[in-house]
């Protein structure tokens, strides 16, 4: 399912222009990272995709659906959203019920709901906490519960807002592997994140935003190498990008194994 954003502008009632004529096409199965400073318009942009906000000008299509003709609840079948702060959505007394809330809203059959919830909880590693109270768990576990709730919607498109905030290496590893698995199932993933090391290893395409506009859009290795653009968007290049540049490794390598291979072949080359 493709996402097609055509010349979208958005002005908040306060008068602030948050999106200025933005166009973006995302193909089925892509993993795209949306980066930029707070206030750059990233969240405003992704909210256009499930009708949480409606464009002042322009048009958004998700598959053959014109988003303007659908409610957010309807869009939930196609676009599943992970909000940044899990505490803005958790309300159930059991982790299990929390994850089941979305599928129940989709009016699925009980066995189907049960399967989805168990699968999602298993995937984030919280199946053994299914009976716990979400707020008796740590904040980073609550983030994983919210992620499970997003996964259980089993929508073709996922929008994940800062899925790795505050998480340790093991938890980030888990989220990364979930993203890889989703990508393998040809789901479309939009990652909104300041965690560029994480974006670098999970996304194949990066879109940089600043002041409501798209500054750059392209393959991850290429975009993250553009120091001036990153400076303009007030983000710091991922660690391996900086190391690649310091060692003049060209093209830069953003994954540990690729980096080592590239470095090895350069060493082997007679200078």
């Amino acid at each position: 399912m493709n996402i097609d954003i055509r010349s979208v502008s958005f002005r908040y009632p306060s008068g602030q222009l948050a999106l200025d004529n933005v166009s973006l096409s995302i193909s089925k199965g892509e993993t795209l990272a949306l980066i930029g400073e707070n206030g750059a318009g990233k969240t405003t942009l992704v909210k256009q995709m499930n009708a949480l906000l409606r464009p002042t000008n322009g048009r958004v299509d998700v598959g053959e659906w014109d988003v303007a003709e659908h409610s957010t609840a309807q869009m939930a079948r196609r676009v599943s959203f992970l909000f940044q702060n899990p505490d803005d959505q958790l309300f159930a007394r059991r982790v299990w019920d929390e994850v089941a809330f979305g599928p129940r809203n989709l009016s699925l059959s009980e066995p189907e709901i049960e399967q989805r919830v168990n699968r999602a909880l298993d995937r984030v590693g919280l199946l053994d906490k299914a009976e716990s109270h979400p707020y008796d768990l740590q904040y980073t576990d609550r983030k994983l519960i919210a992620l499970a709730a997003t996964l259980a919607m089993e929508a073709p498109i996922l929008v994940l807002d800062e899925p790795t905030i505050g998480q340790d290496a093991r938890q980030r590893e888990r989220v990364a592997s979930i993203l890889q698995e989703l990508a393998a199932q040809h789901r479309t993933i939009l990652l909104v994140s300041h965690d560029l090391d994480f974006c670098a290893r999970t996304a194949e395409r990066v879109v940089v935003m600043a002041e409501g506009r798209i500054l750059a859009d392209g393959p991850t290795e290429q975009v993250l190498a553009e120091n001036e653009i990153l400076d303009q968007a007030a983000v710091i290049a991922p660690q391996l990008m900086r190391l690649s540049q310091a060692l003049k490794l060209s093209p830069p390598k953003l994954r540990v194994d690729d980096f080592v291979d590239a470095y090895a072949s350069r060493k082997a080359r007679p200078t």
Partner: protein
Amino acid sequence: MQAQSIYIDHPSALHQLNPLTKLTFTLVFLVAAFALPNAVALIATFVLILVPLAASGGLLLPLLRSAFWLVLPFAISLALIQGFFSPGQTALFSLGPFTMTLEGLGSGLTFAARLLLALGGTLLLMLSTRPDKLMLALRQRGLPESLSYIVLTALQIFPRFQERARTILDAQKSRGLETEVGLLRRLALLVPLIAPLVLGSIVEVEERAMALEARAFSYKTIKTSWISLEDSRAQSILRAAILFFGVVLVYLRLTGFWPQ
């Protein structure tokens, strides 16, 4: 300044007055609103005393605008309800079985004038006084620091909670929650919408309490104050005079000097 208070900064003598002095004005306006006998006296007080005071603080337009929009719905309701249903002889017109009378309409408009004076007096204080300065003035007169903390903090954090309530609504809609449904099903929405707000906020209370302790809130000493307030002998005489005037108004009312 904060969007969540209606204070308007302006270099004027009214703004410079000690908050207690302005509070005294407001109290007496409130007393006058219910002690004065009729619309003429009420409107005269509004125009001859309140309006010049507001104008001296550069607040005339904001005060009139706020007062108008606050009083208008009351005035409409009062005119209709009192006009039709209060006792009176002079019929103006009839609507079905009900008759609008001059006396009823008059009593409704007198009430509207009372509200105008009362709300105008309250607005005068709030438009010209930073809430923290008013709280400081009251603290200096013995109001516990804790009450001042509660009011000022609530005033500054509630917009953030409203924002949070909107985010929660967005988050649950994104999980397929349909909000455009019949009344009974809309009532059922309340739990997934309210529970995250309440739970999330209570969870944060622990951290907020620690942060407050870290700022030496429970430190036992005589607290000092960074902002300072102007006060003078002249102002305390002024306060006493206004208060005396208020007492006179009440006396005249209670002794039936003015007809009801």
